[in-house]
């Protein structure tokens, strides 16, 4: 992934493109993420029930692929699901995985920073 693809993944998203965290069908927590950077932050604060709900519905991968256009991030999230973890362990794994990818993309944008 080059600089332009990285900037596309890291862009500020519209309201329609943002990720909205739910805890179950139709139950919106009020927490949303309008960029990958915000997504990383929100993983730390949202209820773990919400992370479980979306992970096991493949919502994160779908968003990574269709909105952020980042297949690599989608693959990495998929690998988190395959661990079968829940609760705090899921939050830690997901946070670490998404943060790592976010930092990698940031480096692609400004390789000397």
């Amino acid at each position: 992934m080059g600089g332009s693809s990285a900037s596309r993944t890291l862009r500020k998203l519209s309201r329609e493109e943002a990720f909205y965290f739910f805890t179950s069908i139709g139950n919106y927590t009020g927490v949303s993420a309008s960029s990958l950077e915000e997504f990383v932050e929100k993983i730390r604060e949202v209820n773990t029930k919400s992370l479980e709900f979306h992970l096991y519905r493949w919502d994160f991968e779908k968003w990574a692929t269709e909105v952020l256009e980042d297949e690599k991030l989608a693959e990495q999230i998929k690998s988190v699901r395959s661990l079968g973890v829940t609760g705090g362990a899921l939050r830690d794994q997901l946070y670490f995985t998404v943060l790592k990818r976010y930092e990698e993309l940031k480096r692609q944008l400004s390789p000397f920073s």
Partner: protein
Amino acid sequence: MKMKSQIATLDELDWKILRALQKNARQTYTEIGHRLGVAHSTVYDRIRRMEKHGIIKKYTTIVDLDRVGMRYITAIMTVFTDPKESENIAKRLSEFNEVVEVFTSLSEELLIIAKVVAEDQNKLHSFIAHSVAPLPGVLRIRTSIITRKHKEEEFLIEREKLEH
């Protein structure tokens, strides 16, 4: 029937006609008149006047969708809103085909309560996640999927039972 500004004052016969129509809107004027002990022309006049003044809004058909094998789910969606955006949200919700009823309620917070119908849980969730959650001023959403309907009746008919 007397009109005082926008409020109509109905007499006992008007109320009886309305209750008769709510029980069965396909009854003829003659049948209603016979039951209430008045001429069919009286029933006709009263009904026409109530239609003209918008007291009778429409005649509709209640279809039992289960009987025709239609797959659908109904949910009651409570949307917690920023008070400044509440009117806009109610208006936008009313425009969606998935939403069949919309109410505003003021409890501890300003709420919009809407009845939503979708083909299945995935479509319901997708509608709420992609069309409702992104509306400006939506703070949180609580949704309850209805699993069984125990009663559906009109207020006038229930009130009549209370009075007797």
